[in-house]
């Protein structure tokens, strides 16, 4: 199971996502609170088995994620519908390595009736009913950041979304980064480090790795590319769209940590 950092149109780890497509990965299980282009692209190339999310859509001006919807509506793949918060709770459960987390609010709707990862039990302390959400244990979290040193000490500027939590919930963490910075620089900002290097398995240098989504302090969303993708229908067109990023996605110096 792959946890994908970032939110809807912002700082999605697209270079990594495209690489999954290039390598023809299939039957992926994805988890994300709120996704858009990342999930839509993986559905477009048929790489996904299930997605666990609270929200899958572009924002207003870009409309709905067609590839995702088509796949779900055809019954090809399964969507595990959550509230965004129950994804967060389930990841918090993984962070603390417990099998479930209690969560408020779900008892008013029917998501708990239709999905077996929710269950209502009696609180042993108060005897009141309480909803539990089963913990979600991602195998890998992929997170794109602005700055990271060679040890994997990563700093996210601007909104962190659920990335820090994902880096604690997943068994393995892969960082893609706009910039590899020297260790003395991350050390100067040691209290600002969001993901300490000892948690990180691999650091990959991928400038512009979030395009066509935005990356705070680096670049804005690429409106044209996004609209192009949304208009595509054929597999060949989609593969060509991905290929158009080949040079850019391989332009960094890939670096691997060895332990």
């Amino acid at each position, binding site marked *: 199971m792959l946890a994908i950092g970032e*939110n*809807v*149109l*912002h*700082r999605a780890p697209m270079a990594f996502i495209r690489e999954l497509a290039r390598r023809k990965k299939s039957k992926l299980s994805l988890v994300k*609170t*709120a996704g858009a282009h990342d999930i839509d692209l993986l559905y477009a190339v048929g790489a996904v088995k299930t997605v666990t*999310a*609270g*929200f*899958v*859509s572009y*924002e*207003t*001006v*870009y*409309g*709905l*994620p067609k590839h*995702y*919807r088509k796949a*779900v*509506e055809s*019954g090809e793949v399964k*969507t595990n*519908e*959550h*509230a*965004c*918060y*129950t994804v*967060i709770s389930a990841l918090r459960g993984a962070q603390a390595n417990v099998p479930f987390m209690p*969560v*408020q*609010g*779900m*008892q*008013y*709707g*029917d*998501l708990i009736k*239709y999905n077996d990862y929710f269950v209502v039990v009696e609180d042993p302390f108060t005897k009141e009913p309480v909803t539990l959400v089963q913990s979600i244990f991602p195998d890998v979290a992929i997170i794109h950041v602005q700055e990271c040193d060679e040890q994997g000490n990563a700093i996210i*500027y*601007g*909104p*962190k*979304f*659920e990335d820090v*939590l994902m880096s604690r919930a997943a068994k393995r963490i892969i960082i893609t980064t706009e910039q590899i910075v020297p260790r003395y620089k991350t050390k100067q900002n040691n209290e600002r480090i969001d993901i300490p290097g000892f948690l990180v398995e691999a650091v990959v240098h991928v400038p512009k790795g979030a395009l066509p989504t*935005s990356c*705070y*302090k680096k670049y804005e*969303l690429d*409106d044209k590319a996004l609209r192009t993708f949304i208009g595509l229908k054929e597999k060949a067109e989609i593969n060509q769209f991905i290929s158009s990023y080949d040079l850019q996605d391989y332009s960094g110096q890939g670096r691997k940590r060895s332990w």
Partner: protein
Amino acid sequence: MVKSYKISDLMTCTIADLLMDGETVFHGVSSHLPMVAMQLAKHMHAPNLVHLNIPGGVNPTTIKNASYSSAGADLVGAAEAYFPLEEIFDLSMRGKLDTAFLSGVQFDINGNVNASVIGDYHKPKVRLPGGAGSAVLIPTAKKVIIWRTKHDPRTFVNEVDFVTTRGNIWKIITPLCVFVYKNGKLHLESIHPHTTLEEVEKQTGFPLLYDELTYTNEPSIQQLQKLKEIDPKDYRSLEFLS
């Protein structure tokens, strides 16, 4: 004097008037209209309103850079403090979120909200984007305001296809009217000046309940002027354009 305003202006001002000074108020993604309404309230009668959003910017001083997203980093850059989505959910769970803006695709007279599917849950005819925060925020926020830029019988239905969540709605603002939820039912509270009861009835899939019927207040000159200032690029109309 003739005031010129769009439906989005009216909806924005109506929503702004519902917000009180000092309240903590949250909006999510694809939420430009309530975001503008929050800023408007803050600049008019509610200077101490606390504006919360997904990226975590507390009280961003401007929303002018939020061109295509109401969940972007620009809201953090211009903010007083950082308080991200995870924490906002927790805040609501603790009963400390005063007002949440949420939406949905189908609503029925009993206050049921569907943001999940059209058709069968496990084999949907249409897979909707998902309720995002709705399933936990609608029940736990103190007040919930639903805005929806479509008002037709496919949106306000006799019975929703699926109950993503239910109840605890305060108001629903549409291009035609304001609903208020009380005693377990949606009641028509006011209809907008440009429409008629017949039009609302025609566009609503359930029978209209109402006690006393009024017209929604028109935006004031001051509100319209302030809107031009805080939202010069008219983000509040984005949903009507796309």
